[in-house]
């Protein structure tokens, strides 16, 4: 018989080489970076209201547009992927995640041409949000109309 390890040694070896996941650290960074994105949005709303004299509704729309613009720009410049893999839920639950999904799909499929590449694959990652968002909102609004009158 060859020189096999016994099961206990093998289990020990597997345990040693399995990457340790520090969940508390992930939770903290998701909370902290998600919070920072919220503070940044609040700061932009303050700027738009106080410096440009917009109404709060308009300021909210412009903030949404600015955050999407920044997320898409950083994705195109190439370093947003690292940020997302570091902060995880902290960056894909805010609207930055939606913009990141669309821009990275657009960049990846660009070489297949404008119609069959960019046009048909731009919603490859972000399409599920639109599909299930619309279906869910339709379901709940019909339910709301039935219940609240």
């Amino acid at each position, binding site marked *: 018989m060859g020189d096999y390890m016994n099961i206990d040694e093998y289990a020990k070896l597997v345990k040693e080489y399995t990457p340790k*996941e520090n969940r508390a650290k*992930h939770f903290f960074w*998701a*909370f902290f*970076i*998600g*919070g*920072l*994105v*919220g*503070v*940044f*949005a*609040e*700061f932009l*709303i*303050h700027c738009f209201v106080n410096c440009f004299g917009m109404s*709060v509704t308009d300021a909210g729309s412009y903030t*949404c*547009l600015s955050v*999407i*613009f920044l997320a*898409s*720009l950083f*994705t*195109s*410049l190439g370093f947003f992927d690292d940020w997302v893999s570091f902060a995880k*839920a*902290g960056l*894909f*639950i*805010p*609207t930055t*995640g*939606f*913009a990141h*999904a669309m*821009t990275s*799909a*657009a*960049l*990846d499929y*660009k070489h297949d041409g404008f119609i069959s590449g*960019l046009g048909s694959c*731009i919603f490859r*990652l*972000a399409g*599920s*949000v639109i599909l*299930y*968002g*619309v279906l*869910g*909102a*339709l*379901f*709940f*609004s019909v339910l*709301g*109309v039935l219940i609240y009158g």
Partner: protein
Amino acid sequence: MNFINSFLVAGLFCLLAEVIREYTRLTPGHMTSLFTIIGSFLSFIGIYPILLDFGRGGSSILICNFGASLYKGAIEGYYNYGFIGLFQEMLSYSGVALTSAIVISFLCALFFKPKN
């Protein structure tokens, strides 16, 4: 005070998403769809407008706000135009996010090359 509230609202939603993701192994695509539906559900039971008052910036930047504004548009469309308003007005508030994401990602794809 608004800044602290925004930090708390946005941070807690992201924390909740990270907890669900760590324990169930769902992908980011599942999580964003799930949180969009959670957003419509929260505005259906009347909590999301309170969150929008409480932490204005923080709750308006979450993907939940996309679901909440879809719900808001559909309900207001129903009261203004009847049944067809559900379909006609659903995207009226969330159109900003959708249109700007489409236009900006198209422009980025035009001007930048993919890395690697």
